[in-house]
């Protein structure tokens, strides 16, 4: 994983173990002691922190809709001037490029990782142990190390300035984590269905396509969404590997927009930013239904 890229749902209901007689209660019921008292203080503190976090986002929204936006807080307004300016600066094509990059990298990474994850989970593979160790090791590798050698390699074989090859690299950076995620996911699925299909004479690929993939679809979707979100905001890799003006993805486009004119135009910049963020936010909202259990893996090791 190249950047923190694990969206998940906010901690929902407390599902603490309740003894047989008790309907699920939450935490230790200190809330009972001063009804309103402690819960109020805690909620207030949390709300204050929340508002501190909200401020920058408030600026973003206010600035995007106010034609006279500055670096300070703008007055609430409702104008699309900034959005028009953003599109004139190339937001439309940049976002389209981002869709391409993120889309291709996601498809490649997900297909590749599903196949590999399945094999590593189910088949006999010589040296499986060391292979898995390498995969885990690659998960934590800083991508910055790969940048220069890949650049140099691409120079030699003339793969620079190609959105396709760039998205391959982006996809590859997500593959180790995706393999690990999918392999663990598949490990948890009982083999019975595949064995039943095998007994009935299905070939390997048919089993994969008709039996396994429908079963592991949630895992595949999680992996795909994570990869997409990761690739969507990619900056350094496209910056280095593809400098064709027409191929600029959103992140690079915004960067260029900041430095384009003498003075930073905060209004259009904010609008550009919102346009660029909307697809990812939508994706996150859709995926949060799937991911509510996703963080238990890190919290699951008990003392």
């Amino acid at each position, binding site marked *: 994983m190249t950047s923190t890229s694990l969206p998940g749902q906010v901690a929902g209901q407390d599902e603490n173990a309740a003894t047989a007689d008790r309907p699920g209660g939450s935490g230790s019921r200190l809330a009972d002691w001063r009804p309103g008292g402690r819960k109020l203080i805690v909620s207030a503190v949390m709300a204050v922190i929340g508002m501190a976090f909200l401020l920058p986002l408030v600026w973003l929204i206010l600035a995007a809709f106010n034609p006279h936006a500055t670096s300070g807080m703008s007055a609430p307004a409702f104008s699309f001037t900034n959005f028009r300016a953003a599109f004139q600066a190339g937001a439309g094509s940049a976002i389209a490029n981002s869709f391409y990059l993120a889309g291709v990298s996601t498809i490649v990474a997900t297909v590749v990782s599903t196949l590999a994850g399945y094999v590593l989970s189910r*088949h006999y593979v010589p040296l499986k142990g060391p292979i898995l160790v390498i995969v885990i090791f690659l998960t934590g590798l*800083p991508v910055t*190390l790969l940048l220069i050698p890949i650049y140099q390699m691409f120079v030699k074989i003339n793969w620079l300035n190609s959105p396709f090859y760039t998205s391959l690299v982006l996809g*590859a*950076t997500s593959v180790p984590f995706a393999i690990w995620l999918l392999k663990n996911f598949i490990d948890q699925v009982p083999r019975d269905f595949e064995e039943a299909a095998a007994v009935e004479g299905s070939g*390997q690929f048919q089993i994969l396509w008709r039996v396994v993939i429908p079963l592991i679809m949630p895992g595949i979707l999680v992996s795909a969404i994570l990869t997409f979100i990761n690739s969507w905001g990619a900056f350094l890799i496209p910056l280095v590997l593809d400098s064709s003006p027409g191929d600029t993805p959103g*992140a690079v486009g915004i960067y260029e927009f900041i430095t384009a004119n003498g003075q930073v135009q905060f209004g259009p910049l904010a609008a550009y930013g919102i346009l660029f963020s909307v697809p990812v936010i939508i994706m996150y909202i859709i995926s949060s239904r799937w991911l509510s259990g996703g963080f238990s893996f*890190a*919290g699951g090791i008990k003392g």
Partner: protein
Amino acid sequence: MANLRERQRLRPSTLAWLTPAAALLIGLFLVPICYAIYLGFTNLELLGPTAQNYSFTGLANVQRMVHDPVFWSSVKLTLIFVVGSGIIAQTVLGLALALLGQRAHVTVRASVGSVVVLAWVLPEICVAFIWYAFSQAGGTLSVLSGHSNDDLLSTVPLLIVCVANAWRGTAFSMLVLSAGLRNVPQEADEAAQLEGASYWKRLLRVTLPIIRPTLMINMLLITLGTISDFTLIFAMTQGGPGNQTAILPVYMYIEAFQFNALGYGTTIALALMVIGALLSVFYIRQLRPELRRAS
């Protein structure tokens, strides 16, 4: 682990299906890593004569690095950035939010949680320009801190980028630690209550020790993610003013693509990998008792 029920033969599909992944990983990970290990010891440049005819220069780059004050400053900045904004800020804030969330009113917890997570989902470049605006003269942060005429990004650049990164990354810790807290057995906490322990005593002696493995994993992941972070700082300050925020990834980029020293840039990247590996070893060591018990 070999499943005894599997037939120990190599199926044609095994190889076929592993090939795409293997091709990508070998081609775009393993080969570049090996190539990097070689390139880091050459005098390769981006342009000019040594772009084509570069040669192995032994430890020349390493010598240069060791005597490069900007490099050492960069290492220090990287550690400050990772520890300050990652470990301390994100973990403490994330833990605080997770603990508060346990007791807060449901609506508050859900809405604050959503805001914090939204900060995380936002593309990094957006975080960068938002905080850039925030800390300009006249920006909200400058105004709130009483320095409305100052360009905070010039006066306290490292602090600002740390705060921006903390703002962005807290959600991850909050979610991971919330999950970890859910795994603290309620009965253990209740037993401690009966033994007379107050909330803070319980937090210190029961809750935190139990979630220690989660905390370690969280910090490991934060470290690995932050140490190679490029976009945020580069977009906000380009490493400046004057290298004051040039953490290693940014310094590498500057050397490689602005000063054309690709070989030296690779050396810096290798140094970054070594530092990352050392930190990982540290965390894994902390986790060893738990890992041993799990196997």
